[in-house]
């Protein structure tokens, strides 16, 4: 699989680069000659004079603040740096419509409009992260937020470019590991270090940009480490445990969540050749992330010790604590994740009239993580994937631009060891797509179309459930899916200040490996999962109406959306149980502790309705700075539309708040208050979450020193009220709340 794809990739990239280089050099001289010729032709009488009319050069300014449209949110610059955290979900949780599905502080998966996992595509520089995070909520995303220079959250029609896994949205983390421009100085870069009082967390990162003439190089590295997270109350919500699992007599922790320390390090090296009209570059990166899972989540009730119920009778355990002590009986689960990535990028600009850009991207990912219990490995997940994309951006007419593209993914996934609830599987997909944009007076129309074929092929022909009397379950040979998606949007620029956008999107997603082929106990979600090989494509029918108004002092944006998803894949409680100690399937259990409910993947129509809104206004402009106020709110409600009409589980609650900011171009302060309401519709077999007040304050100061050396100091206080916050999008919320009060101090030096 890889050799074929690699060969194709290698050949096409070399050809592209060679022709680009050739064209680039030839093109340069052509342009110069033609320009001169044109000038002489227009003004023959001026040929001997020195007046030369220059061609119009368009200068596009980029707003340094984060940008939002209904279809895309961008987080970059200082705003990004103030939000950067240990995980991607936590970095983005203040963005409208985005929540953080945490699993202890080591994991943070972004949830976009209530959707996550296989429905939100998480990418790094346009190529998927290809980790195991869609498989299980305790698997972290293999992207290091510290490296990010820009994070885009994409929804609506533009997700057509990225495939079925983007049906809910896309989170694209850009870190410029393949340099896109030659730095001004031979050497430039940045070094950053920050300290978090909660858990003594330290983050350090550096990036170095080297370049001259046609060549640019980027080297980056980071190191992150923290101790156990501190929280205001107890780690485990005892009442919820009783209600949800019937568990009593739990061993709880107060003040901090044990086993949530983590350490992570990594780096990347990238180099590009950058011509006037073309570029080609590649990078290699490595990330190593070791984190713990909060206790009580993987294992069962720690007071239940099969076979050792007489243990309290033994008075003296000295010399045997390592096998009979409390830590040995309730061992820590840790995850050790490693990922090596090779990225390749090549672009050719304006090769011929009408074509703006021809681009090629390829990423090769080797991901592995080992789940370790009490210091010994028990399951290893591996994901080897290659993803490529070839695009042509055109501007056939002044007002008509668009893209034609092809994308392909090849993937081999395996989970080996004790908790192998998904078999070794090969998965591949091939998609063709186009997006077009037409500007007509005050209107901008966008359309997109995509057709995608995917294949899922389990390597074994049957699955045997470990230790069980259940006979082997036969597996299908090859599952094929064909998915067509279409999108349409219309934007009406009412004035130069206001715009209204309506987008309609009909997108299809093919089922993912775990939805098709799960068979076995899944300890992190406390379920026994059964896959369904007859699942069909999910079809999301979305309508999104957005409004945008921006004047000098006020900006307002809001959008409401309606998403009717046909055949939404979910897990249905079969009403039966799996006795994990004895590997037996039962209709009912005496001991809730030993028994996992059995869930079967199924499909059902679901409706999601929600909105995001934000009003920003500059109240005062003083000599010292601007005083601004922002009001914001977001909400989503998900409900199954047939049968018992129950709620889709793990939706975020209603959120609203305000932010007061004061500052100028040198220093800034802000105080942000977010109120999350109670989530009284958590879904079947989940518990309500309490409302909370979240108060955050930030301050930053920029110092321009000699030459190009700049310092930027910042401080951020989170959860200043030290509230206990349990997030309704997290599976693990009753075992681990969000962190308590924390202060982060950081310094960034740019040179």
């Amino acid at each position: 699989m890889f050799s074929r794809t690699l060969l194709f990739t290698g050949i096409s990239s070399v050809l592209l680069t060679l022709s680009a280089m050739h064209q680039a050099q030839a093109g340069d001289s052509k342009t110069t000659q033609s320009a001169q010729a044109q000038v002489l032709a227009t003004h023959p009488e001026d040929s001997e004079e020195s007046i030369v009319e220059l061609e119009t050069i368009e200068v596009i300014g980029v707003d340094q603040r984060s940008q939002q449209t209904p279809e895309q949110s961008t987080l970059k610059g200082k705003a990004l740096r103030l939000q950067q955290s240990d995980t991607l979900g936590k970095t983005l949780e203040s963005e409208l419509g985005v929540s953080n599905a945490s699993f202890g502080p080591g994991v943070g998966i972004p949830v976009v409009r209530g959707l996550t996992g296989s429905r939100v595509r998480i990418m790094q520089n346009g190529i998927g992260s290809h980790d195991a995070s869609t498989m299980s909520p305790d698997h972290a995303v293999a992207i290091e937020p510290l490296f990010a220079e820009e994070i885009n959250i994409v929804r609506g029609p533009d997700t057509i470019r990225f495939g079925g896994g983007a049906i809910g949205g896309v989170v694209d983390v850009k870190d410029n590991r393949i340099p896109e421009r030659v730095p001004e100085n031979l050497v430039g870069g940045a070094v950053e270090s920050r300290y978090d009082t909660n858990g003594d967390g330290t983050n350090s990162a550096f990036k170095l940009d080297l370049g001259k003439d046609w060549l640019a190089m980027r080297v980056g590295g980071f190191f992150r480490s923290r101790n156990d997270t501190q929280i205001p109350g107890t780690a485990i919500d005892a009442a919820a445990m009783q209600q949800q699992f019937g568990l009593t007599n739990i061993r709880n922790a107060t003040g901090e969540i044990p086993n949530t320390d983590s350490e992570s390090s990594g780096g990347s090296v990238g180099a590009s050749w950058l011509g006037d009209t073309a570029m080609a570059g590649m990078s290699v990166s490595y990330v190593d992330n070791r984190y713990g899972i909060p206790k009580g989540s993987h294992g069962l009730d720690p007071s239940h010790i099969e076979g050792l119920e007489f243990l309290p009778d033994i008075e003296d355990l000295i010399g045997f604590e390592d096998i009979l002590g409390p830590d040995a009986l309730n061992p820590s689960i840790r995850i050790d994740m490693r990922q090596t990535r090779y990225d390749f990028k090549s672009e050719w600009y304006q090769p011929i009239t009408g074509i703006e850009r021809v681009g090629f991207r390829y990423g090769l990912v080797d991901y592995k993580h080992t789940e370790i219990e009490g210091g010994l490995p028990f399951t290893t997940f591996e994901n080897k994937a290659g993803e490529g994309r070839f695009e042509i951006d055109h501007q056939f007419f002044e007002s008509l631009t668009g893209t034609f593209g092809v994308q392909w993914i090849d993937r081999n996934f395996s989970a080996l060891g004790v908790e192998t609830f998904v078999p070794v599987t090969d998965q591949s997909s091939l998609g063709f797509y186009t997006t077009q944009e037409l500007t007509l007076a005050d209107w901008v129309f966008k359309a997109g179309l995509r057709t995608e074929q995917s294949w899922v092929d389990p390597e074994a022909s049957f699955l045997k459930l470990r230790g069980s009397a259940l006979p082997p379950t036969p597996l299908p040979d090859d599952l094929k899916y064909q998915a067509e998606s279409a999108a349409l949007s219309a934007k009406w620029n009412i004035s130069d200040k206001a715009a209204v956008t309506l987008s309609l999107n009909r997108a299809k997603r093919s089922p993912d490996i775990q939805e098709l082929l799960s068979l076995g106990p899944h300890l992190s979600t406390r379920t026994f999962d059964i896959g369904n090989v007859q699942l069909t494509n999910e079809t999301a029918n979305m309508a999104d109406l957005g409004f945008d108004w921006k004047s000098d002092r006020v900006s307002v944006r809001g959008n409401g959306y309606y998403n009717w998803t046909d055949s939404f894949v979910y897990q249905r409680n079969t009403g039966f149980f799996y006795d994990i100690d004895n590997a037996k399937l039962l209709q009912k259990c005496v001991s809730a502790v030993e028994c996992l409910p059995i869930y079967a993947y199924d499909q059902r129509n679901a409706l999601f309705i929600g909105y995001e809104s934000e009003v920003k206004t500059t109240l005062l402009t003083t000599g010292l700075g601007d005083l601004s106020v922002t009001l914001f709110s977001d909400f989503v409600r998900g409900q199954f539309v047939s049968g018992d009409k129950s709620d889709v589980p793990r939706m975020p609650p209603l959120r609203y708040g305000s932010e007061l900011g004061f500052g100028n171009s040198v220093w800034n302060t802000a105080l942000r208050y977010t109120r999350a309401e109670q989530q009284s519709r958590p879904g079947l077999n989940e518990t309500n979450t309490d409302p909370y007040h979240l108060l955050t304050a930030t301050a930053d100061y920029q110092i321009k020193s000699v030459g190009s050396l700049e310092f930027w100091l910042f401080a951020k206080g989170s959860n200043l009220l030290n509230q206990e916050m349990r997030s309704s999008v997290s599976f693990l919320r009753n075992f681990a709340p969000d962190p308590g009060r924390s202060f982060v101090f950081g310094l960034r030096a740019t040179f």
Partner: protein
Amino acid sequence: MNATSSRLTITQYCFAIVALCVNSAAHAVHLDVEIWAEGNAMFAGFCRTTALGCDLAQLAANLQLPPNTLPKDGATGKQIFLSDFRDFSGGLYATPNPGFQSIQNALSPNEVVSYRALGVLEYWDPAISAWIAPATGTRVRLFGGLEASSVIINNASQCGGALFCFSGNGTGVEGSTIFTGNGIQGSPVLLVDAANSQGSLHTHMNFFLENQQGQQGGPVGAYLVEMEVFSNLHPVPSESFYVLFNAGLSANAYTNALLSLINTPPLVVPPPAGFSPVARAGSDRVVRFGSTVTLNGNDSHDPAPGPQALSYLWSQQAGPAVTIINGNNANATFLASKTGVYTFNLTVSDSQQSGSAVVRYTVPMRGDVDLDGDVDRIDVALILLAAQNGVTDPVGNDVRDIDGDRVVSRNDAVLAKNLCTLRLCRPTLR
């Protein structure tokens, strides 16, 4: 291995009979049903393997039974296993006991053991101290494993694509066995468990007391059910046995119910003693690896003494070959130099007639105290507990006495820990 329940049940008795609440070295009383296979038949028993912590004397004492009384039905001789709905496992009307267990090699690897429910549910009414039919609608429900039943459909094309599914929904009766006053309803046959790769098994069941309204609950009293076990490899079922559940009775009242069963006169008059010599080879035992084991035929006798005094001949029938020393004596010995199950046959003769008997010795690997086929921290903990209780080993065969110094000490626990074979020194899923 030890049952949560047995300890808690006895503890609960203790609360009621405070005076007798001695240090019940709790796991000493063992109430799981021990099962094993021989020939083509299954067997179910009580305290067959004493190393599992079974102590009949302690049991009799705790239940205030007359000394040397076994919980056996007087009429039929069938064994009665004891359980209590109010043990602390799952509320007032649910219990996971009795569990079922078998030691290493007692079953074949991955053997699938099922139970069959028999007879009718009987109810001991404490008000009249008599056995009567239970109140209408009252029943005992047992949720056995579904794997070998028709409830599980292991075919995606019949399950709408799910890799396997369940017939009916979670409230169907086929997923449980219902013991009623009128007989067995639901599925009379369900799974006990599958043995692991060492042929050992330990599982708990799921018994519930349900009332007329179909909810958990029922009149205070004792409930008696009957069942047998069989397997896919040994289809001849065991002799059936009873389970007596305590549903809220005081310890005295429960003991009365039990005694009423024990004291029922036998149905069958035992045949008169014959004239042949009777061989007694002793009871099956578990002995320590590397120890010298005495084959004890002392209880053999000749009801009608023949021309010559009784002669003895010990021979090995199965297991790793060993040399029998003094095989012509009433007491012979052999060295348990290899792990395995040894079967010896004793033939006694008075030169006219002879009789024979068979005895089985199980030799687990060094350190495997609970006989589940591995050395794990449960074995280490069992040794620590025995050391704390000052257990001695005068004969030298106790599996807990790893170093063979005739005393079970902490040093034996250290040795067992070093022999630990499993990840984390604890049992994993099989």
